């Protein structure tokens, strides 16, 4: 729960919400990006950013090396698949 998962922003869905589509490990989903957007870094500028995602919210921008290392560590901890499955199932699967 506290580790989150790194992912890359592949498109901006709504600069107002603000929300974006992220991609990681073959899974894409919409996340809220309010916590990484400000006047100095607008929603549109987030395209291509690597971010740390917690519970559907991008919480911090990280660099690509950091993202790669964190993904490798999550795989090692055995938490990668569960996180991806949870993201994929999305809105309220009952399994």
């Amino acid at each position, binding site marked *: *729960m*506290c*580790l*989150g998962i790194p992912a890359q922003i592949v498109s901006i869905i709504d600069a107002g919400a603000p929300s974006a589509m992220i991609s990681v490990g073959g899974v894409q*989903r919409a*996340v*809220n990006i*309010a*916590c990484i*957007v*400000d006047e100095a870094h607008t929603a549109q500028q987030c395209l291509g950013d690597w971010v*740390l995602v*917690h*519970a*559907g*919210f991008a*919480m*911090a921008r*990280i*660099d690509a090396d*950091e993202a790669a*290392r*964190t993904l490798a*560590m999550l795989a*090692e*901890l*055995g*938490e990668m698949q*569960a996180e991806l499955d*949870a*993201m994929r*199932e*999305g*809105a*309220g*699967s*009952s*399994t």
Partner: protein
Amino acid sequence: MKYVDEFRDPVTARAVIEGIAVLADRIMRTRTRPLQVMEVCGGHTHAIFRFGLTELLPGTIEFVHGPGCPVCVLPMGVVDDCVSIAMRPEVILTTFGDAMRVPGSRTSLLGARAAGADVRMVYSPLDALALARANPARQVVFFGIGFETTMPATALTVQQAAREGIANFSLFCNHITIVPTLRAVLDAPGMQIDGFLGPGHVSMVIGSAPYRFIARHYRKPLVIAGFEPLDVLQSLWMLLAQIDAGRCEIENQYARVAEHDGNATALAAMSAVFEPRESCEWRGLGSIERSGVRMRGRYATWDAERRFALARRRIADPAACRCGEVLTGAIKPWQCSLFGKACTPATPLGALMVSSEGACAAYIQYARRDDPAQPAA
């Protein structure tokens, strides 16, 4: 040093391990009891076990696995209240996967689902909000747990529900906060912890200033740590350097993610939606003043506690459970008579057996070799 070659930058890792050994040796010349270092976050606990870090370190350093696993510390009374909400026919109860297995006094949310309740795992509170939009005739309740890492997600979701006027969504708020929790650990009788590895992702949200009281009032050092094995080792090295020099400071090894001031947007949403409860019940630790939050009056419409008039039941922990003593470092998991017998990962009785981030579950999963007194698991 089985794992070191697999670490990022094994050369640095070896140098850090050597540095830790030198410092520990020097510190131990003027004391007899081992150095106790509490890693506050369950993510660190998991990493320490998975990467066998204790096996790389001098025997004079003991990790005390802290209370930072929010799933582990959920009290049974809260689970019972949540089950009672879930059993109502109009309700779709949603929560993170981790929360589904936590036992209440009679059953867990998984058990409630087997008994016919509509309980669904979601990845994000935003998914619960989407369910509310899609099911206007049902009451969709999100069971929100966790420290400041997950609190911004919940707070921002409640604000979005308010903005959109989604009245059939509500939050059963059981978030907890790190600072009162650390204060309770520091005030525990017999506490002998020498320093703390601070939680990386809680700190990403709250920054490093809230920890200053630990250095100022309790004279203990804290180093905010990342989650890779090398991060944990480097943080430990920084901590020992402080202890060796007689310094007590709040340092940040994880500055690449956790900034000094935290995340302004997240903090603003949290303080708009939540306020401290006078007191909050923990599994294994009893009641801790102002350690939990509830929803402010202006968000009463989205507060499940008000909507379903909950009693906030209190259920005592099983009498033989010694989770509290494990959490404060007074005993090791295997010194509890229930450990691995009545209390196992499949049938957890105590808080620390519930999640893979709990100290007891980690001891079982990774059958520690450095504790000769531990019975083979």
